[in-house]
């Protein structure tokens, strides 16, 4: 009988777990929708921004700007963007693995690597394992452009002061709900902008520039860094919730399977108990009949 009770308790426990994973799935789904909407809303801003930046870069020799300065790399910084919370499948693990691989190859080239974890999962992982310049944790739940601005504040001046020579960004590129892939992007020196093809010939018009075109470019480039960072943040946020949706969906399905097999076990055990009891009674009556 004890076994029966145990199984029953187990079924109840799994059922409760299932309720939780199901709720988490739904929460992730609604958060995912919000994140996706934000990505959608950001597109016109980013698109328009690139258009102007490219047309401006055509006029000014952008490659003389300090943010585009190519130096032989000695020290590099790597931004590693993870989520704050777990329970989202391999989302963070895959990213951290990719980051570690990247760091290893760079270290093999005798480069000094310093990490900048963004998101708590990455921070916790790298805290004791790597050299860290600074970090941002517990920021993914609610962020806006000011987070990207704060990060760029921390990376632009050291680069211009030549405290490091290259900056890479590792984040989960968002492809669709169920697929995110770690991507490595070089942020600094900024890739050359203003190629001839990037600008529609009809759009190459003479503007009045206020202030001068050089100063304008000087102001636009830090904004460009913020645009790149913000996009990565949005993709991370959408990817995290997409991954969590998939993980929780899986977990719910596993619970169903577990409940099925446990119920089967429970029924078998109950049948066995009934049979055993019957055997007892039959054995008892037979013994009584013999003795009388």
């Amino acid at each position: 009988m004890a076994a029966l009770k145990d199984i029953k308790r187990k079924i109840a426990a799994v059922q409760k777990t299932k309720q939780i994973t199901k709720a988490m799935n739904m929460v992730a789904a609604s958060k995912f929708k919000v994140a996706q909407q934000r990505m959608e809303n950001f597109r016109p801003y980013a698109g328009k921004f690139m258009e102007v930046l490219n047309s401006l870069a055509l006029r000014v020799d952008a490659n003389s700007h300090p943010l585009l300065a190519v130096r032989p790399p000695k020290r590099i910084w790597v931004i590693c963007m993870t989520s704050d919370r777990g329970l989202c499948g391999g989302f963070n693990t895959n990213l951290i693995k990719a980051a570690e691989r990247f760091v290893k190859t760079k270290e093999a080239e005798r480069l000094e690597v310093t990490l900048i974890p963004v998101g708590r999962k990455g921070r916790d992982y790298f805290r004791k394992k790597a050299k860290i310049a600074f970090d941002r944790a517990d920021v993914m739940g609610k962020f806006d452009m000011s987070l990207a601005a704060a990060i760029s504040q921390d990376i632009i001046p050291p680069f211009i002061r030549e405290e490091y020579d290259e900056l890479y960004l590792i984040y989960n590129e968002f492809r669709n709900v169920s697929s995110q892939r770690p991507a490595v992007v070089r942020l600094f020196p900024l890739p050359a902008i203003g190629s001839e093809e990037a600008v529609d010939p009809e759009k190459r018009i003479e503007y009045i520039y206020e202030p001068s075109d050089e100063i304008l470019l000087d102001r636009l480039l830090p904004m460009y860094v913020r645009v790149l960072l913000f996009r990565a943040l949005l993709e991370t946020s959408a990817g995290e919730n997409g991954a969590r949706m998939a993980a929780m969906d899986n977990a719910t399905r596993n619970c169903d399977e577990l409940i099925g097999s446990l119920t089967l076990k429970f029924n078998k055990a109950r049948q066995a108990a009934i049979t055993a009891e019957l055997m007892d009674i039959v054995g008892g009556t037979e013994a009584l009949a013999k003795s009388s």
Partner: protein
Amino acid sequence: MADELLLELVTPEKLAFSDKVEEVTVPGSEGEFGVLRGHASLLSSIQIGELSFTKDNKKTYYAVNTGYAEVLSGKVTILVESAERADFIDRDRARKDKEEAEARLNKMAKEDPEYDQVKAALTMAETRLKVAEKA
């Protein structure tokens, strides 16, 4: 084409406004400037300040963060990192932001790397309060 003026106000969060207007006043970094229809092509950076436009003889005010403005053949595109319409500004929050920024600024040396950032936050809060009055 030259007899209308289309305004597009774009932020990273959304397309805040897109419609025909009569006049736009932009807080350019070299001083405020107005745009009427038929304006020459212009590209200007924007500083934290008050942006306003007139539509059907009614003026609407926004508090905007840094960005830039592009005027091109009857269309004004404003790209700013944030834009809040006067009647949507939360005054209590703006006041709190202002006090916070002031308190931090008082404790800070001018050489502090975060000085400019906090200063910008203060300007933004003050602008928001000012614009909120016009709602």
